[in-house]
């Protein structure tokens, strides 16, 4: 049990508020809905005190104090607005604007931009100083990420989060007397995109965001099929002002139909296939006692992390394809056959919470006789932008039903979007395969749920103790790998998601994304699961049908539902391309 923390009472702007010992003024203010501007603060990261916008006054003390790094004290009287404070914030903001080359029309923060809000509030002259970063380069990292360093305001959140991810691809480099954030040429980006959601000013974005959002719709004479990932349904509403954790599945489908989707399917159905295959593979490995622990592989950023930074673990990844790749494959084979369509005429677009998925669909070993299972990936943000462009407001649109048969998932497929969801779904199905006497409550494996970076559980499989671990955040995964290297039988089955909290915290999700918001998105997914009649992947009628009628031989299953991985060596200059210097 955690030791009880001492409560401290203080006043902010005359209002009595409560906090705990060792909390900062900013933390208490945020919790008490008192607004203090803070650019470099993020609940996932250490307090750095770099931007100096959060300065406040404290009664009885001289000068200004950064709220982010000043601890609260009993009876402290904090003032968050005064002439002095306004002047300091205004000048520092003007200095920040002088670093940031605006491109407001093409920015992931467009409607939520803290800088612009503050510019209005403090009546800034945003061009008081000439932009000093005009000549700073724009980088592209693989098919996933763009980093425009001319927008960077040197808060260094990206460097910290990249390091926290165990990658350290972004670094600070001295150029002349100033420092720049640059990619480390000796390292590889794994495309998790956490830099995007931790950058307060939109210096990072997905490739194609937002200039290419209409590309998938411009294909003439093609059947355009949209499929959306599990986590999208509880996050995209935010882009339209809906409260965090609002479930918008039906509205999302309606919106996709309206922009021209011929069919709308649900990646959660793909997840039911992944679960089915993965549970099978796990049991097989368990019986053979080979390549254990088995690692999940539906997160392409995690897969890339293993291939680049931990190639010794490549054989431990499950060979099962990720949900949207399986579903894309089924659309172009099973469904196309059923409909009598030429698969070459089908365009599959995945709506993903992720920028690594843009890289995943280009992996050649996933192609089916030369055909890509998925043709385009748009992030949650990109789709929201597309909706907006087409005049669709999710707040107002009338929900519609998904299309048969690939639009009807089980609860198991939906929880894939939260850390622990893959594990829980696979365990539910593995229990069935192993004929473990199911008590009703064992549908839920609550120990693997939650936002902690590392969770573990021991599960009884007919007397055999199965040790499982669930990890989110690549830095935590890196630590776990080290433990497993030292003690190979530590676990039997491990789920890893690169992003904090799993896909609900993905690099393609709306901004802001933080601890509180992720929790809301995840909880909503579990609510959906709880309300579903069918909560076991192996009981999904379409899964049963495909296995009975289409997956007649092992080869076919393998062709559509399995893949291979390779230890990767860095190719020179392939990875971070300097695309322009503006």
């Amino acid at each position: 049990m955690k030791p009880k923390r001492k409560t401290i009472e203080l006043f902010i702007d005359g209002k009595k508020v409560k906090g705990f010992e060792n909390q900062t003024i900013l933390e208490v203010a945020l919790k008490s809905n008192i607004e203090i501007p803070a650019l470099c603060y993020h609940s996932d990261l250490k307090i750095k005190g770099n931007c100096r916008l959060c300065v406040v006054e404290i009664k009885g003390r001289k000068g200004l104090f950064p709220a982010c790094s000043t601890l609260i004290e009993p009876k402290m009287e904090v003032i968050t607005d005064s002439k002095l404070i306004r002047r300091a914030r205004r000048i520092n903001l003007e200095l920040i604007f002088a670093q940031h080359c605006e491109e407001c029309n093409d920015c992931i923060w467009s409607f939520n931009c803290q800088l612009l809000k503050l510019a209005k509030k403090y009546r800034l002259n945003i061009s008081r100083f000439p932009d000093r970063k005009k000549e700073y380069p724009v980088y592209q990292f693989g098919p996933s990420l763009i980093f425009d360093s001319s927008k960077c305001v040197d808060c260094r959140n990206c460097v910290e989060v990249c390091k926290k991810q165990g990658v350290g691809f972004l670094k600070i480099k001295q150029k002349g007397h100033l420092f720049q954030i640059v990619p480390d040429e000796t390292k590889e980006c794994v495309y998790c995109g956490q830099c995007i959601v931790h950058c307060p000013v939109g210096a990072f974005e997905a490739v194609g965001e937002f200039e290419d959002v209409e590309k998938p719709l411009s294909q003439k004479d093609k059947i355009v099929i949209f499929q959306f990932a599990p986590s999208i349904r509880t996050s995209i509403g935010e882009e339209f002002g809906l409260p965090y954790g609002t479930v918008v599945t039906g509205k999302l489908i309606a919106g996709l139909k309206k922009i021209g989707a011929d069919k709308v399917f649900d990646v959660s159905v793909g997840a039911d296939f992944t679960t089915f295959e993965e549970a099978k593979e796990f049991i097989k490995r368990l019986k053979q006692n080979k390549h254990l622990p088995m690692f999940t592989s539906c997160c392409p950023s995690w897969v890339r992390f293993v291939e680049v930074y931990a190639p010794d673990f490549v054989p431990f990844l499950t060979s099962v394809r990720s949900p949207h790749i399986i579903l894309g494959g089924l659309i172009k084979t099973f469904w196309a056959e059923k409909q009598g369509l030429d698969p070459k005429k089908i365009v599959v677009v995945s709506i993903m919470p992720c920028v690594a998925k843009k890289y995943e669909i280009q992996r050649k070993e996933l192609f089916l006789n030369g055909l890509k299972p998925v043709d385009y990936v748009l992030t949650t943000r990109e789709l929201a932008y597309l909706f907006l462009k087409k005049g669709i407001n999710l707040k107002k649109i009338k929900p519609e039903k998904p299309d048969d048969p690939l639009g009807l998932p089980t609860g198991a497929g939906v929880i894939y979007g939260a850390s622990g969801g893959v594990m829980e779904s696979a365990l539910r199905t593995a229990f069935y395969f192993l004929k473990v006497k199911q008590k009703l409550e064992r549908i839920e494996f609550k120990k693997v749920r939650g936002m902690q970076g590392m969770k573990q559980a021991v599960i009884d499989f007919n007397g055999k103790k199965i040790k499982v671990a669930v990890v989110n955040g690549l830095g935590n995964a890196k630590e776990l790998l080290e433990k497993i290297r030292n003690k190979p039988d530590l676990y039997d089955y491990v789920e890893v998601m690169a992003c904090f909290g799993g896909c609900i915290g993905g690099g393609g999700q709306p901004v802001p994304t933080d601890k509180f918001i992720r929790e809301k998105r995840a909880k909503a997914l579990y609510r959906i699961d709880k309300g579903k009649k069918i909560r076991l992947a192996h009981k999904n009628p379409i899964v049963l049908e495909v296995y009975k009628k289409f997956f007649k031989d092992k080869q076919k299953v393998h062709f559509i539902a399995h893949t291979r991985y390779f230890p990767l060596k860095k190719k020179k200059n392939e990875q971070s391309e300097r695309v322009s210097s503006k």
Partner: protein
Amino acid sequence: MNARWVIDKIKKSGLKGRGGAEFPTGLKWEMVKKAKAKKKYIVCNASEGEPGVFKDGFILENYPEVVVQGIKIALKTIKNSSAFIYLREDYYKKFGEKLRTLIKKEPIYLFKKPPFYLAGEETALLEVIEGRRPEPRIKPPFPVEKGLWGYPTLINNVETFYYVAKIIQGEYRKTRFYSVSGDVKNKGVYEMPINYSILRILKETNNLPEFDFFVQAGGRITGEIITPDKLKKKVKGQGAIIVFNRSKTDIFLLMENWVDFLLRENCDKCTPCREGVFRLAEMVKQRKIDLKTLNDLLFVLRQTSFCGLGKGVALPFFSLIKNLGVKEIK
């Protein structure tokens, strides 16, 4: 010579840190001594980075045994401790060998400081010793509570350790080392009473100019600009006095010196220091100073900078304008 006696003795002497911040030395020692931890560290800061300040180099050259003696006293006073002497590169080269012979087998290690002024700031220094970039840390926790690798750490300047040894030997006469330079006849380091005014120091060292002049007191970058009529005050900071011949000094060149140094030596961590100094430099170099902008920049530097370096940028500019007049920079 027990610990209590040592600390009382230092406290009674009234010794204040000679690195510039003037924190009471005895109190600092007591805080580290009282802090509960398995082990503790001691750092002798010999980074002496500001131009115009060269007294630590003088002490290391002439009295290294006294400095080492001071550190050894600290090792004895603070149980389970080991020490670093954090030397700027040229001092490391010049005095390293001599120091090693004096240290003998005591747990005192020499550490070469990277060529960065800010790496001399007491928490940036901790970052450097731990192997990271020289950037200051958020305080609290202060180094006396959590310093090197999270252990309580006593950081004192070279001169402070020198005087601790003198206090324990009963030879402290309330003096300090002044670095006198600039347009003077007798440039050098002088040991004189702490309560001497700038005027008296210049007089007694036979350095009081006959021409029209002004001084910068404290250091050649962050020191205060003072005109001859206001010299009856003590030097602050690190005890440096730099004399300028008023008619021969190009004020813009003087300011350019400041900003060039700051641009090069700051760590770029916080907005006001990174951007403020950049814009300050822009104006100074273009010889076009907008007073409102200057005031604004110095305001955020002083009020919102992360560490002492940024906060200290304002003093030389403000005092220059106040004492020499706005005309000089228009």
